């Protein structure tokens, strides 16, 4: 333990302090709880938002902390969804088993594909993530005996949670279920990004060569981040399949990958809560605009994306930070 004594006490205190929850961090959870009581009619949309928060969170780990841009993250969401769905068709109705199955499967797939593709970077890596997604999509589309092909997975029977709690038609159970899974995932991710491991990921994002030369095993750390991110995306997909009791081929598309990236940049990349704000903003805007006219939705989505990239790189939370700083100066 000699090496640790060289850490200055202030730095050690700072490291510890980061792990502590700040009061402001309770805000999103209070909002999520309030929605359950105040907006009982919107719980179906609410559940969908919670699932997307989870998915965006997994991508934040990849993009915001490990600095890997992926166009193919939907492959893990989709695989998780299909895995959980196919399990229920073959008589395993217990949702928690489905979650575990998707977690292990997608985690393993993430580690395996990460180990293969993370040797590249830049355009090649971007194309490889996209290529793997396209392979998965084409496979799901062709293997109709397993996935139902273009019609989607028919006949899912999702059992009660732990044999006790049935999913209801008003999405109340679904909402609480998604919330519980999200909470567990969030605590894990938060712990991870503030740990020394998370710091080293951040260091690699800043300057991978320097991290390598101070002796960090960069490749294996990136692969682990990829695997964890894939596992979480798989869990989000599994929850999505279970609460909707349906999986369609739309879970394995470039559109979904682009959508979740969009959510993340709307909320703010690399700040954990960006996933919450961005997913809620995106989904509510989609719900409202697409009902009016899908053309408007695409137009506004495109305009907003361009505006965020050009003018507000921190997304909504970055903007809030700037406003707060501006207010403090006044």
């Amino acid at each position, binding site marked *: 333990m000699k090496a640790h004594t060289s850490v200055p006490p202030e730095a050690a205190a700072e490291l510890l302090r980061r792990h502590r929850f700040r009061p402001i961090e309770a805000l999103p959870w209070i909002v999520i709880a309030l929605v359950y009581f105040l907006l009982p009619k919107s719980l179906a949309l609410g559940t969908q938002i919670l699932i997307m928060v989870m998915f965006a969170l997994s991508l934040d780990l990849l993009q915001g902390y490990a600095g890997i841009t992926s166009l193919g993250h939907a492959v893990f969401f989709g695989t998780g969804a299909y895995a959980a769905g196919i399990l229920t068709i073959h008589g395993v109705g217990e949702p928690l088993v489905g979650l575990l199955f998707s977690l292990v499967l997608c985690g393993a797939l993430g580690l395996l594909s990460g180990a*293969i593709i993370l*040797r590249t970077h830049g355009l090649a890596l971007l194309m490889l993530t996209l290529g793997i997604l396209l392979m998965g999509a084409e496979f799901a589309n*062709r293997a109709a005996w397993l996935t139902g092909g273009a019609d989607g997975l028919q006949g899912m029977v999702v059992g009660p949670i732990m044999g006790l709690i049935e999913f209801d038609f008003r999405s109340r159970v679904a909402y609480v279920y998604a919330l519980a899974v999200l909470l567990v995932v969030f605590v894990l991710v938060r712990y991870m990004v503030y740990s020394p491991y998370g710091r080293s990921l951040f260091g690699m994002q800043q300057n991978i060569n320097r991290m390598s030369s101070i002796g960090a095993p960069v490749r294996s750390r990136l692969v682990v981040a990829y695997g964890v991110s894939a596992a979480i995306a798989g869990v989000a997909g599994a929850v999505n399949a279970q609460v909707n009791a349906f999986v369609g081929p739309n879970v394995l598309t470039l559109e979904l990958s682009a959508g979740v990236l969009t959510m993340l*940049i709307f909320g703010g990349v690399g700040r954990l809560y960006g996933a919450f704000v961005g997913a809620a903003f995106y989904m509510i805007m989609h719900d409202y605009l697409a009902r009016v006219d899908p*053309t408007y939705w695409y*137009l506004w989505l495109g305009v*907003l*994306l361009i505006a965020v990239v050009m003018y507000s790189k921190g997304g909504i939370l970055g903007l809030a930070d700037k406003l707060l700083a501006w207010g403090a100066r006044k």
Partner: protein
Amino acid sequence: MDIILGVLFNGLSSAMILYVIAIGMSLTMGMMRFVNLAHGSFAMAGGYGLVFFGEQLGLPFWLSIALSTLLVTLASAVLERLLYRRLYGASELEQVLFSIGLIFVASAVARYLFGPSTQNVTVPDALSAQISLGSFSASSYRSMLIIAGFVLFGSMTLLLEKTSLGAKLRAAVDNRRMAESIGIRSEQLFILTFCLGSALAAFGGALGAEVLPIRPSYAFDQLNYVLIVVAVGGLGTLYGPFVAALILGITDTACKYWLPELGAFFIFAAMVVLLLWRPNGVFSRT
């Protein structure tokens, strides 16, 4: 034998359209390191331009293509000045999201102006005929595509290999800083390349309107294929994307014909393997 010829012929003609669209993307990506996923939107705009001038105003086919290409080129110059310019050197994430945003806007505008359905394009009588060579008969439209592709490839090669502009361009792709320090004005080259790329895309989109159907989702539909050509072909070479487009077009047509149950799976798998083998592109010099 006729079937093999037919597959080769159809594959070749699709490959040429892909090449003409992809070459601009390869040039801009090689030079500016800008991941412009919205490049297909310029091709789509070219196609819609043909629909507007040719179908709605009733102008002749070739004149419509020329007008449409010109219009898209001008529009791309404006876009480069206003938007793209500010993102050179930005992170991949920003470039990817920015260009996806552009795709969304372009498809929304297309849907608003022309409706959600696929557009019909009338080609001149001379192009709708069949040419028969013995027992093999070929569509003259597709023959025209193949000839146009080879002509463009030839002229691009001449432009890049034999002119001083081409030499400057290649220098800027290879090493931008070095090129700038010997007095090459890379900013001017950028906008020129960008416009040339979008002009080619618009031309390809209009010319291939019968093979690659013009509809609002065009840019997303073709994105995968164009990206494969660019990534596998490698940046900064001319023949790389050409060969990649040839292989992709012919393999894709052959797979669809002989192994329809595999679909495009083989293409995507091949791309992944090729990129793992040579991440900078199969035909790149590095």
